[in-house]
């Protein structure tokens, strides 16, 4: 475990924690982007170059933008009554999450695993070959899924007939 790993994990964890705890939604989405950049750095650190750059391209370049748009599109009407959030709901959630975290960490630490020490590299060419041979069917299915998701999202979010523009 190197210093860079610790720094990267701090970025990821702090970014993630910020993403779920800020009260301003825009700040949350931006923190999510920070966490995603951290994750990309982690992938680079682990040698998965392609995944790292894809992570940035997809999450920072697309997903966080979409989230930001959604936030701007769903701002509550002015003078709407704020939602009263019961404190115990929050505490229960955090407690349950903490419990799960404890269990998971315990499980991980309790499992003997050996780490492979040498460097592992996967080139883009290899990935491309794999995608076109072994993973050809998943690739097609993902393509289909993305198309379906695109159309589904458009149909869902498109204004219905006769609906007045907000």
């Amino acid at each position, binding site marked *: 475990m190197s210093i860079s790993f610790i720094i990267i994990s701090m970025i990821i964890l702090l970014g993630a924690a910020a993403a779920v705890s800020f009260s301003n939604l*825009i700040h949350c989405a*931006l923190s999510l*982007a920070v966490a995603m*950049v951290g994750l*990309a750095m982690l992938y680079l650190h682990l040698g998965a*170059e*392609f995944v790292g*750059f*894809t992570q*940035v*391209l997809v999450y*920072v*370049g*697309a997903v*966080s*933008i979409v989230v*930001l748009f959604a936030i701007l599109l769903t701002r509550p009407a002015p003078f709407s009554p704020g939602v009263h959030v019961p404190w115990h709901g929050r505490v229960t959630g955090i407690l349950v999450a903490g419990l799960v975290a404890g269990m998971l960490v315990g499980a991980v630490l309790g499992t003997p695993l050996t780490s492979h020490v040498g460097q592992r590299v996967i*080139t*883009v*060419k290899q990935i491309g070959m794999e995608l076109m041979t072994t993973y050809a069917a998943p690739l097609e299915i993902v393509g289909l899924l993305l198309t379906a998701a695109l159309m589904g999202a458009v149909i869902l979010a498109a204004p219905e007939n006769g609906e007045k523009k907000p």
Partner: protein
Amino acid sequence: MNELFSEWVRRAVETLSEMLRNPDQAPVVGKAFIVSVFPEFLQGVVGAFISIAALISVFGGLFALLTLMERKGLGRIQNRPGPNRVGPFGILQPVADGLKMLTKEDIVPFRADAFLHFIAPVILVMMSLLTLAVIPYGRNMAPIELDSALLFFFAAGACTELAVFLAGWASRNKYSLLGAMRAIAQMISYELPLLLASFSAVLLVGSLSLVSIVDSQGGFMLGVLPKWNVLTPWGFVGFIIFMIGAFAESNRSPFDLPEAESELIAGHLTEYSGFKYALFFMAEYIGMLAISGLAVTLFLGGWHAPVPFLGWVPSYCWFFAKLLTLACFFIWVRATLPRLRADQLMALAWKCLIPLSFINLGVTVFWHYSAAWSFAMALPARWGIAFLALAVPYTFLARQLGTKKTFARRTYRFAE
């Protein structure tokens, strides 16, 4: 101690003579020498720092030069001399501009998100500079040789969208937010043709690495014509699509809607002043240079010489010559074309460029497979088929873009 010093001097002299003997590799040799001075564990860091320093100084200089060139060039095109006061022929104008920007008051609007307001231009500049890291500037002169360099370029480019949004949102100004939204919509729309156009080069080379893409463009056809991608049908169309996308991505005229001064004050830049504004300016110019560098790398043969007998000129000179040519083209276009309307902008991207770039990808595949043709008229046949496959859809797409609407003649009513 003395011996050590004399050894160092001897090696320095050797390096210098090597650099003089082989100017093509001079920067590489020089860097290697400087790095070798430092102890082993520092060498990686020092090498990186040298690259960074070189990049920032060169591109900072280019930025300054470009602002000057832009102002002079625009002036000439409009029959004015352009800036000519500071220094001989006004060449110190960028310095004066910089000083002015530095000394201006930094205004942060009341109720603005101060931190985000500050961080947005920083991220923008950072990401623009990051994109410079993977471009091969000369033989053996890519700062980072990545296997997926093109992906890196676009990943870093994608982050600029976020920065633009930040700038718009953090300003708490409706003009800023509108401008930012426009900018994001435009960037996302034009990223597709940009990516698709560059993928045609990737498809043919079979690698995302910019170094190998440049390497594949070395050599000459028939002894005179360079094997640049732009000199193939798919490469030519790809280059044009790429350049249109590049204009839009760097928010340059005629795609400068996000900062349209006459409609949106200055878009997401409205609430920025002083040095932050200068940073935005710098990011825009560096982004423009970076994307021009990518265009040079993908389509214009990178650092390869255009004619065989000029091969002795150092490779990086060729790269920067091509880069500056493209930058001048940017300025030229800015002086020529008026700004598009928002719907025209989107129609151009989605109805014309994206279909065309898909067709271009198909033509690239055809080109790749028809390379094996060996009969007598193979080359003209390839050209002919590729030309037809591109020109016919182009005429159709272009025709349906042309607006058939005729607007009613405007009438003016003067005060009586």
